[in-house]
């Protein structure tokens, strides 16, 4: 139903089993961070992998989603599901306006424009009163999901985050394998030809961008809920760079790459956190190795080895 191939169905099954088993083995809060990063990377991968546009400003949508979810939880005391929904809507809304500007150019200019627009969002968040400036929005209560599920327990929260991730993952996969997704791939391969076939390519790119930003906003909202905090780091351009790294390492345009990349990068940050700026250096080195020698990424290489598409 989601257009999985045989190999992908098996891989999806393995991923589900890992998601179910791992909280009994590993620290759930760490796993929730991985899942949020993975969902964010899936959203980003929708643009780079299937539309061929590199957005260097996805932190804007992730971060604003995080801020709005945190704010609605803390000030309006809404249900957790509504807060995540608000986060997603914020991402989509912002994505529509910024995307409308950015898709006027492609390639390298698209990357620079998204970076610059995200920087504008960053300065807005620095100045705007509702974000709390340098302090961010802190001590956001986790509250209840659907009014009944108490999220203060880490395990309960974990199952909610896992459900959000799987839903987002399947949504991205469904988008890619819909007729709409086929047209996106057509635009990526040969835009003039898609235009000559009568498709308004700019509209397709914009819709894809809005969908991607919506999922990024949902990831940001979920993250704010898990950690009870939304800060300037979420909108900072280093977060944009990180999601590029996660997707590149996992494998651009692969189905399972973003999740794999998120697992590796988040673990690395977790273990290197005590060494200060070495995290940045390691990230940079991974970037360079990926670009120079490892452009298919982890999942891409595994797929190439077994001659299957993952």
């Amino acid at each position, binding site marked *: 139903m989601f257009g999985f191939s045989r190999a992908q169905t098996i891989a999806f099954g393995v991923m589900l089993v890992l998601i179910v088993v791992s909280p009994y083995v590993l620290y759930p809060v760490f796993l929730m961070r991985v899942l949020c990063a993975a969902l964010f990377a899936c959203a980003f991968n929708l643009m780079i992998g299937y539309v061929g546009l590199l957005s260097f400003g996805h932190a804007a949508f992730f971060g604003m989603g995080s801020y709005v979810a945190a704010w609605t939880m803390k000030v309006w005391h809404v249900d957790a599901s509504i807060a995540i929904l608000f986060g997603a809507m914020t991402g989509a809304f912002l994505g529509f306006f910024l995307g409308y500007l950015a898709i006027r150019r492609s390639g*390298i200019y698209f990357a620079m424009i998204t970076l610059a*627009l995200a920087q504008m969002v960053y*300065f807005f968040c620095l100045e705007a009163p509702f974000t709390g400036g340098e302090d961010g929005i802190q001590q956001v209560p986790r509250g209840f999901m659907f009014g009944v599920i108490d999220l203060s327990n880490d395990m309960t929260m974990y199952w909610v985050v896992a459900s959000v991730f799987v839903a987002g993952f399947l949504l991205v996969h469904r988008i890619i394998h819909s007729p709409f997704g086929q047209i996106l791939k057509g635009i990526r391969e040969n835009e003039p030809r898609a235009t000559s076939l009568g498709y308004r390519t700019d509209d397709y790119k914009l819709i894809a961008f809005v969908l991607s930003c919506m999922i990024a906003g949902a990831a940001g909202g979920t993250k704010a809920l898990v950690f009870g905090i939304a800060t300037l780091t979420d909108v900072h351009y280093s977060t944009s760079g990180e999601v590029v790294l996660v997707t590149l390492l996992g494998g651009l345009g692969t189905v399972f790459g973003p999740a794999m990349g998120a697992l590796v990068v988040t673990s690395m940050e977790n273990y290197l956190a005590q060494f200060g*700026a070495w995290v940045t250096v390691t990230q*940079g080195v991974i970037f360079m190795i990926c*670009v120079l020698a490892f452009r298919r990424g982890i999942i891409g290489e595994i797929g190439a080895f077994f001659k299957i598409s993952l």
Partner: protein
Amino acid sequence: MIMIFGIPGPLLFGQLLLGLINGAFYAMLSLGLAVIFGMLNIINFAHGALFMMGAFASWMLLDYAGIGYFPALILAPLLVGAFGILLEKTIISRLYKLDHLYGLLLTFGLSLVIEGLFRNAYGSSGLPYRIPAILQGAMNLGFMYMPIYRGWVVLAAVVICFSTWAIIEKTTLGATLRAATENAPLVQAFGVNVPRLITLTYGGGVALAAFAGVLAAPIYSVNPNMGTNFINTVFAVVVIGGMGSILGSIVTGFALGVVEGLCKVFYPQASATVVFVVMVIVLLTRPRGLFGKAA
């Protein structure tokens, strides 16, 4: 006291000068980006980090070797430019056959490595660099007091920008460079060593960034993040100007610095975002950029 639009003259001129200085850095950095992009088809994301290295090089020359500001103004760009040539030879040259985006990703990774290493070695609090004695003090221009060093920065930037322009537009070397940008295989067929030309272009662009870094050292404290703070705005400047013309990058850089300075006087809340707002307006009205050629 002179009042202009209800603003005291000295305040207005002071901010204009600050804007002109920022504009000088925007111009030098976006010029280097444009030159490198023209030749290598790579957006050099590491430009900010190399700018920072220029500032650090001048600080190290003074601190470890006792070499002063003026020799550093020549030595630091040479050192960092040589480092750039090494980078191009060993790493960047492997990417020419790939999608341009890989160049962006590689140089982004490079900037993370460089900044991370400097942050490990020197912390992120910033190191002081004294203004050389001859450029200290202020000059009375009649309508305002101008700190001599700031005037010097604007002057040096204008001279270096226009020299770069003259080299590219008016010399034989520049003509070969422009020809290679248009059609590299053809120029190679005439016996020009195009790979070496590409290496030199990258080294030159990097040296330009390092020169800007030395100029910036006494104004901003020398710290590992100083390049990143600039480079994001410089990308917006590049989008506004378009990368088609050398003169365009220079003019756009200075003009946007002045706009930013004026914004600090009349509406300070928006001064951090005004460049991006200009970019939005340009994208809506002239998506190719003010000086961009139709691709």
